[in-house]
C-alpha cells in the first residue's frame, strides 16, 4: 500500500522523500508555481505554490509529503493571495505583454490569467533596467525578471558554467552575468545551454526569432496553464 495524503479532498499517493508538488503533479493536480521546475532542486522563493498543510501555510515545492497530510490548495483564500503575488511581480518589473516575444508562452502571464488577475492593482515601480543585447544570438531583457533563479540553477547545476547569479538584496535584488563587463557577450554562455531553456518569463530571448507562433496558437492560448497537458510538453523555445 502506497502512502497517501489528500489535496482538496483528493487522495494522492506519494513516495518517501517526494515533495507535495511532485506528488500532486503525478496525480494530475495542478498547484500554481513559477520558480519550481521538476528538473531542479526546489528554490521556494516565488511562494505561488503555497498550500495549507494541516492548516499551516507552506511552500509545496519544498515541503515533503507526509502520510495523511491534509493539504488545501485550490481555495478562494489561497488563490486570492496567489493572485496578489502575481500582481506584485507585475508591478515590480516592467511587464509589457503586447511587446513581449514570450507572450502566450509566459508562465507569469499564464498563471495570472489562471488566477483571474484583471489588474496589477498596485502602483507600478517602473524600475529602470537595461536590456543586454551583447551576445550575438541571445538577449536578456531584465525588465521581465521575476528572480526565480531558474537560469542561475540551470547554469550552475547542469551547464556547470555559473553564468548567472543574483546580487544586491531586497527590492534591489537583480540578475547578473559572469563577466567583468557584466555583459552576456563576454561570458561562455551558449544558446544550447540548459540555462537558455528554463526562463518562465521573457528575460531570455533568442535573437531574430520573435513572435514565431501566431496569436491563438501559442502554448497558453490553447489551454490554461492549469491544464497539466502542458507539463508533458518539452520546454523548448
Amino acid at each position, binding site marked *: 500500500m502506497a502512502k497517501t495524503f489528500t489535496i482538496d479532498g483528493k487522495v494522492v499517493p506519494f513516495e518517501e522523500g517526494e515533495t507535495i508538488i511532485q506528488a500532486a503533479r503525478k496525480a494530475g493536480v495542478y498547484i500554481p508555481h513559477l520558480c519550481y521546475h521538476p528538473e531542479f532542486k526546489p528554490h521556494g522563493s516565488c511562494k505561488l505554490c503555497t498550500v495549507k498543510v494541516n492548516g499551516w501555510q507552506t511552500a509545496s515545492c519544498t515541503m515533503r509529503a507526509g502520510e495523511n497530510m491534509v493539504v488545501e490548495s485550490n481555495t478562494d483564500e489561497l488563490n486570492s493571495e496567489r493572485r496578489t503575488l502575481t500582481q506584485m511581480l507585475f508591478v515590480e518589473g516592467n511587464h509589457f505583454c503586447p511587446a513581449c516575444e514570450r507572450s502566450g508562452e509566459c508562465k507569469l502571464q499564464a498563471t495570472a490569467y489562471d488566477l483571474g488577475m484583471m489588474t496589477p492593482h498596485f502602483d507600478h515601480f517602473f524600475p529602470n533596467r537595461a536590456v543586454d543585447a551583447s551576445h550575438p544570438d541571445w538577449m536578456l531583457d531584465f525588465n521581465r525578471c521575476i528572480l526565480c533563479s531558474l537560469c542561475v540553477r540551470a547554469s550552475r547545476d547542469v551547464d556547470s558554467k555559473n553564468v548567472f547569479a543574483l546580487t*544586491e538584496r*531586497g527590492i534591489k535584488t537583480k540578475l*547578473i552575468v559572469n563577466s567583468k563587463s557584466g555583459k552576456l557577450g563576454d561570458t561562455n554562455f551558449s544558446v544550447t545551454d540548459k540555462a537558455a531553456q528554463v526562463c518562465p518569463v521573457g528575460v531570455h530571448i533568442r535573437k531574430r526569432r520573435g513572435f514565431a507562433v501566431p496569436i491563438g496558437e501559442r502554448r497558453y492560448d490553447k489551454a490554461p496553464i492549469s491544464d497539466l497537458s502542458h507539463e508533458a510538453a518539452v520546454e523548448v523555445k
Partner: protein
Amino acid sequence: MSNNQSESVTDVVERVVAKHGRDATYMVQILREVQEVMDWISPEVMDELQAALGVPRTKIEGVAGFYSFFYLEPRGRYRVLFSDNITDRMLGNRVLLDRMCSNLWVEQGKLSEDGLVSVDTTSCTGFCDQGPAVLVNNVAITHLTDERIDQICDLIREQVPVVDWPTEFFEYQDNIRRKDLILNSNIAPGEAIRAARARAMAPSAMSLGRGDHARAEVESLRMRALSPVECMPATHENPGGSVTLISEMRRSNLRGRGGAGFITGLKWEACHNAPLKPGQQRFVVCNADEGEPGTFKDRILLNAYADLVFEGMTVAALAIGARRGFLYLRGEYRHMKDHLEAVLSRRREQNLLGENILGVQGSEFDIEIHLGAGAYVCGEESALIESLEGKRGTPRNRPPFPVTHGYLDQPTIVNNVETYASAALIMIMGGEAYSRLGTPKSAGTKIHSISGDCERPGIYEYPFGVSIAEMLEDCGARNVQAVQIGGPSGVLLAPSEFDRRVGFEDVPTAGAFMVFNNGRDMFEVAKNFTHFFQHESCGFCTPCRVGTSLLTNLMDKLDSGHGSPYDFNEIEKMNQLLLSMSHCGLGRTACNPVLHTIAKFRHVFDKRLMSDDFVPAFDLDKALAVARQMTGRDDEGAHLKTMVSFGEH
C-alpha cells in the same frame, strides 16, 4: 584601516585569501578584510579574488552585493554611517547628519567630490542608550553633539587616520543599571566547564530520572558504536555524559533568548542525536548578530562577560560533542573583535580552549569569530549559517533544521549570546535551581536593553515575570505613551497594558525595550520600523521583497498627507499576505509595527487621513515640475492639484 599604499591589490588579496586557506567558505571574512585595506571592492579586487579563490565572479559579486557594508563603488576613505533607529532619531541624529553633510559639502549617500568621504545612515548600531551614534570605518562614536560633529569633520578634512583620533571619541559605556543572576555572576574562567565535567562524570543514576536513565543506557550503547573520532572526547570516560548535561539543560527549562524561545535543552539534544555521515562533525554557533533595533544587551555581555559566553559555548560543545564553534558577530560590532580575540587567546593559554581542555586528553574545542557585514536577516539562524558559509544571507527552506543540517550541512546548534551565558551558569547552579527562577513557563532571568524616553537608559536584568510598569519605574520613565518591546518585530504596548509581564506566557521579548513619552508621534515610530524592514528584506521571497516596499510606500503616502481609508485596507491586506506567504520571520513580522500602532494609537493615523476619497500616492503637481521648467510655463494649466474633492458618489 586606511589604505596602505605599499601593498598592491594583488598583495592584499593574496595575503587575506592565504590567511583563510583559499577557502571560499570564508568569502564574507575575505571581502571584509580586503575592504578594510582597500576601502572598497573595486573591479580589480574582484579580478584578483576571482583568480585567487578560483570561484566565478558572480559568486563574489552576489555575496558582496548582498551586505550593506560591502561597497562595490567607492565610498571614500572615511565612511560615516549614522545609526538610524527611532531612538537615534529622537535624540536628533538627522540634524547632526545634515550638519555634517553641509560642513563637509557632501550629499547624503553620495561620495564627496574629492572622493574623501561619504555620509549615510545605517540600521541600529546598538548604542541606543548613548546615541546619537555613528560608525566611522567600523569604529563606533557615541554621544554625538554639534561640537563633536564639527571636530569629526575637521579630522576628516585634515585626513587624520581614524586610529589617531582622540581616544575619548571611542569611549562607550556598558550602562549596567540592574543586575541579577547573569550580571551578578563572577565565575572564574573554567568554573562552568569544570562543573559540567563533574556533572557528566557523576553516576548517571544520581542525576537522572528513571526514563532518562534508560535513555542514557541506549545513548551509551549508541556512542560506543561510533568511532572514537566522532564521539565527544570529554565523554570517553562516561559515554552518558552528554545526556547528563543535556538533561541538566532540559531540567533548567531554559528557552532561547533570541526571541523564539525554543527550549535550549531540546535543541541540544536534537543536535546531539543527529546522525553524522563519515567526515562530518557537530558545530556550536553563537548568534551575536544583534540586529533587532533597540537591542544592545549582547554588546555588554560580549564586552564585560565574554568569558561567561565562551564558557557556555564550551559547555554546549561538551554536551553535543563538537570540536568547532563560531561566534557570528554583527558587522556593526567590528570594534569589539580585538577585545574578543584577546579573550579567546587568553582562554587558549589558560587551557580552556584548544586541545586537551583542562588537561583532559582528547577534549578539544575552539571558537572562531566570524563577522557579519550589515544584514539584519542574518540573525535568522539558517541565514546566519549561510553567511558563515560565505554566501548571501538568505534564510534556508526548513525543514531540515540546522540541528541536523546546519553549517556545511552538518548538525549545528545556533543559540543567542545570552542563552550561552545562562547555560554556563546552569552548569554551576544546576538546572533545578535555575528553573525555580522566573515563572513556570519562562525560567531564569532576562536582560533588557532600555532606551528612549527615560532618565536611566541602559542594561537591566530581571527574572522573568517582571511587569512593564516596574521596569518603567526603575528606568525613570515619565509620561509614557507607549513601549516597544522586542524591537520592531515585537509588540507595542499602551499604558493600559503596563501591568502585563515579561515572559513567554505574556510578553515575550528578545531584549529591546524602547520607551516613548507623550510628546512622541507614534506614526513616526511605525514609519521608521517599516523602512527598517524594507531595507533589511533579503529579497528572496516575493511577498517580503515586494510587500515591504509596498508597505513603505503606503506609510510614506499617509505621511505626505495623501492617505485615505483605501490605504488602510491595503495595509490590512498586505499584513495578511506577509503573514501567510513570507519565507521567514522578517516578512511575517514586518507589518507588526503598523498594525499595533493602528490598533492602539489609531488617532495618529486618522490625523493623516486627509480625504475620504482615494488620493494618488504621487504628487501630481510635482509630476509636472520638470515640464514646467522645460517650457518655462507657470500658467494655471501648468498645474494640477493632487487632491480634489469629488463631492458624493
